[in-house]
């Protein structure tokens, strides 16, 4: 686990920098069934990260390898585009979004 490069970045005064950020992860549809859970928590994430790294962490943590490449993420209810740089804060809501089929 890579330590955060700058301790001050988190902005959550009182947090211990090396502990990293923890986020809530929501899973839907096929991802929910594959992971066997609708919700989980990821801890120890670097505050400054990017889409690829977060996708990697989520895939590993919830054993989503079988559907890797078919889902994207949403951070705090906004889609994350490929290659986006992300700044995570404690309590952020990350969602695993498989192919949509509404309507």
């Amino acid at each position, binding site marked *: 686990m890579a330590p955060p490069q700058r301790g001050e970045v988190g902005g959550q005064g009182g947090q211990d920098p090396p502990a990293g950020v923890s986020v809530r992860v929501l899973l839907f549809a096929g991802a929910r069934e594959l992971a066997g859970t609708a919700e989980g928590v990821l801890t120890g994430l670097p505050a400054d990260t990017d889409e690829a790294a977060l996708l990697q962490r989520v895939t590993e943590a919830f054993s989503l390898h079988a559907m890797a490449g078919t889902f994207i993420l949403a951070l705090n209810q906004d889609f994350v585009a490929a290659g986006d740089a992300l700044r995570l804060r404690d309590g952020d809501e990350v969602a695993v979004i498989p192919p*949509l089929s509404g309507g």
Partner: protein
Amino acid sequence: MDHLKLVKCEINVVELMKLVSSPSCGATSMFVGTTRDNFEGKTVKKLIYEAYEGMAEKSMKKLCDDIRSRWKVHGIAICHRLGEVAIEEASIAIVISSEHRAESLQAVQYAIDTLKAEVPIWKKEEYEGSNESAWKENKESSWIKTEPAESVVCDDDSDGDVVDIVPPDLIQVKADDAELKRRMEAFMDFKRNQVNFSNIRDFCGNANSELSCARVDAVVVRQKGSKGHLRVRRVLNKTGPQTQGIELWPQAAGPSSTTPLMQGKKQKLEVAASVNSTSDCPPAVEERLRNAELHLGLNQCQNNRPVPKDVYARLKDLEDRILFLEGVSPEYSHVLTKVPKIEPEDKKPRLFKKRVYSVDDLDKKMRDLENVIKNNSPQKSTT
């Protein structure tokens, strides 16, 4: 006014219509998506919808704002059903009202297309027998098709010369697909308009303009029962190479070919003086013949020969001359269409010799032929 709902019970379409209706609106357009009982030959037993509710509401709100930025609509109501939905029931209803129908009709189409692509809702189909089920994928859901395809390409070319990571400072066009598409369409529209403009300026309705170099003036004239709708006016030059006498003439090789027009004029004077007395046809006919001969460059070519006395011989010469000219420059054929038809009419009686055969005659002919063949074949085989 936007009315957005995710409901677990049946959708009440009439209620939605009331939500968006207004005395100022002349149109209420509605899309209702209902569940189908089949997919690729399998019988669908039931469907289950699931949503990322917070985000779905947020993105539906965003969709409403988007619609309002594009069309002038009054009320928008979007209702999506969640949980189990029986076959034939409505899973989604979109109702939009507007002053006139165009806006609401277009907005409804846009709304359902965008909703399928952007609002996080999922559908699972359960099939009859074998406990089979599947999460569906909307074709509008863009990242599905592109991501795996891209990764496959990268894998295939990883040992080739494709650069995997392009430094961001080298990327000049950073617009997304929709923006690129819009730009290309705008460019095509612009080009089309440009071409149309210059075509109209050059070819339509200003035959006499000094600015245009076009030699035709085409005006669209719709004609019932005809495929051609262009009325074309051809330029008929009063001067220029096309109006000059043609110097080749099969009967007179060369001596008079230098300045045809001048010689024509001289000839005219001479003829006026001499021929009038010798010819025995009425003066008006004589003048018309002479003018025709001069016009077609006949006299000057026959410098060394007298004009035939016989009117019919002169007419024949004129006809030959016309046929010759037509053969040399086909663009005159539209003026002279009647001339070539004379020939086939002359030949017809020679070409077709009619003979009437009776049935007996035909039978006899066939028997004769059979005999000939019979007699021939053994002879050939023996020799």
